């Protein structure tokens, strides 16, 4: 199989290093149109036509964000996402032609940070991309609430049982072992860490972490919490039925 990953042209690049995006999509029209549209917004866009090519293109270049179609030949978007997650916490936006619950859930379980349903308006897609990138470059205000409620050690290191969260270095460790979190998972954890012990409802998390209004799907919260639990210990975040979640202090 020949690689037909191609490097998109850099156009209207704002600033020194344009954000680079990899789009994996099998439909040629969508692939090219999304590439052209995103380039207009100043992104550097690489494209790939199937799952294996996508994996290769991902490994070849450091991308700031991936947009994966679910239905792909060779290796589907869900499998591709899972493979990528083994190697990198890069933000992943899934693009699904199915609004089916199963597809969305599978994509999010595989580690995608967010999803959009085809056909998606370019404006909406760009808004999702920006929200994802904001999370990836998120740095909490040192004076902000996340840094305020500290317990022992340095002011910027929060400790909850065997879990410690360094809000300045953006590092998380569990029982001394570093934990690798995606930007979305980290952002979610910081949201919990800012208000340990208090219940945060799904809507609020969706708004604060994902930048969604009412139109957002709270399943992305549930599935991200699920992934976060796997990494930091399942008892750390408790479900409060009918309301949301809370971080256990001790």
């Amino acid at each position: 199989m020949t690689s037909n990953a191609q490097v998109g042209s850099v156009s209207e690049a704002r600033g020194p290093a344009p954000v680079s995006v990899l789009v994996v999509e099998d439909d040629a029209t969508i692939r090219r149109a999304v590439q052209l549209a995103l380039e207009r917004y100043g992104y550097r866009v690489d494209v790939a036509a199937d799952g294996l090519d996508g994996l290769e293109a991902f490994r070849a270049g450091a991308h700031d964000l991936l947009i994966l179609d679910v239905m792909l030949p060779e290796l589907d978007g869900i499998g591709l996402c899972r493979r990528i997650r083994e190697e990198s916490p890069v933000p992943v936006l899934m693009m699904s032609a199915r609004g089916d619950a199963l597809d969305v859930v599978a994509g999010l379980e595989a580690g995608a940070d967010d999803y959009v349903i085809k056909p998606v308006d370019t404006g909406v897609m760009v808004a999702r991309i920006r929200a994802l990138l904001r999370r990836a470059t998120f740095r909490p205000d040192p004076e902000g609430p996340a840094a305020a409620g500290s317990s022992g050690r340095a002011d910027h290191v929060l400790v909850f049982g065997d879990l410690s969260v360094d809000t300045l270095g953006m590092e998380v460790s569990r029982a001394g072992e570093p934990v690798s979190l995606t930007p979305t998972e980290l952002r979610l954890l910081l949201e919990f860490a800012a208000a340990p012990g208090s219940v945060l409802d799904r809507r609020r998390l969706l708004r604060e972490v994902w930048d969604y209004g009412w139109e957002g799907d709270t399943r992305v919260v549930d599935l991200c919490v699920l992934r976060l639990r796997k990494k930091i210990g399942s008892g750390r975040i408790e479900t409060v039925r009918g309301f949301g979640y809370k971080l256990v202090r001790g």
Partner: protein
Amino acid sequence: MGFLNPRALRWKIAALAAAACCAVAAVVGFLVHDATRERGLRLGHDRTLTRLIAAEREFDRTGKAPADIDVRTRAELPEALARDLAERRPATDGGYATWYDVDPPNWYWMWGAAAVGDDRILVVREDMSAEVRSLQLLDRSIAKSVLAALVFVVPLAALATEPINRRLRHGARTARRIADGDLDARIGSAGRARDEITEMSAAVDDMAGALQQKLETERRFTADVAHELRTPLMGLVTAAGLLPDDDEATGLVRDRLRALNALVEDLLEISRLDAGVELARLDPVPLGELVADVVRRTGTDTRVDVGAAEEVETDPRRVERIVVNLVANAHRHGAGPVEVTVTGARIAVRDHGPGFPSDLLERGPQRFRTGASERGRGHGLGLTVAQGQSEVLGARLAFTNAPDGGALATLDLAPRPTA
């Protein structure tokens, strides 16, 4: 079908049993009555003749009749007796005449007459009232037994129909559930009875199965078509986004594309709602805030009053779909001003147009039918989607017309009072 409904099957069968019971009793009663009467008459007749013969012998021997026997002339005889006597010939039947003199209610006499000389006739009168009385008693006791039998037979027949009734009622209920959209409902065959009801139940079940399959095929086809349209539509939407913004043609293309997109989305949504796979994801939602925000984002000129709104446990994305569709429908088919009012857990969307067409008020939203032409154009899926979504939420969506004109759609999100 209430227990007391006089046209219920049980009472018909009970009436049939009662009628059969009465008919049998009438025939048997008549035969018994007749036989008993015959026997009574024959006994009376024999008694009369016995007395007459004894009196005749006595008269022959002594020339005088016994004290209880009259001796009369032919002229003194009752007419019927005289006629009978005239027909008798001593050679063949001894010349004894009889006549049963009946004048109800209490005149029952058996007359007997025998000529013993010229114009000297022995006349015997035998009282028959004892026979008549016993016959009446017999009639009465037959009637009493029939009534007593009916007292048992009618309720027994009514009770005996109960299993049949129950099966029929179960069948009717199931058929109604199927008609109301529960396509999984089946009558089934309980018990071992192999009768016409079983046969009809099986036929109804087959029909429901065929109907379900047909609907499922249709739904899947709709879903597949809409789904297949999405990929080319995605390319089209993105490509249209690349067209120059300041071109009028771009505006036209994008506008129609939006309409096409909305149509495909509605179709997909309806097929998902039809499939019954949609589940509400409940969250505590400040309804006023949600509705105000949703209406604002529709970008329409709509008045919003959320002063008396409450917090509700619901799925905000579905509420959003419903409110957006209702508001869009009000603007498209009604006339301004469009008002959205939230009171407690109720959302009312009202316009000042011609109101909902009558068949929508009667039968609810129908796919691809906007009713009256004055409601303008539109594919008519929006209200169907709203209705389907409100069902997923367990909410009630009512379409009415305001008393002073205009369409009024009310979504009530308050939990149903549990019975």
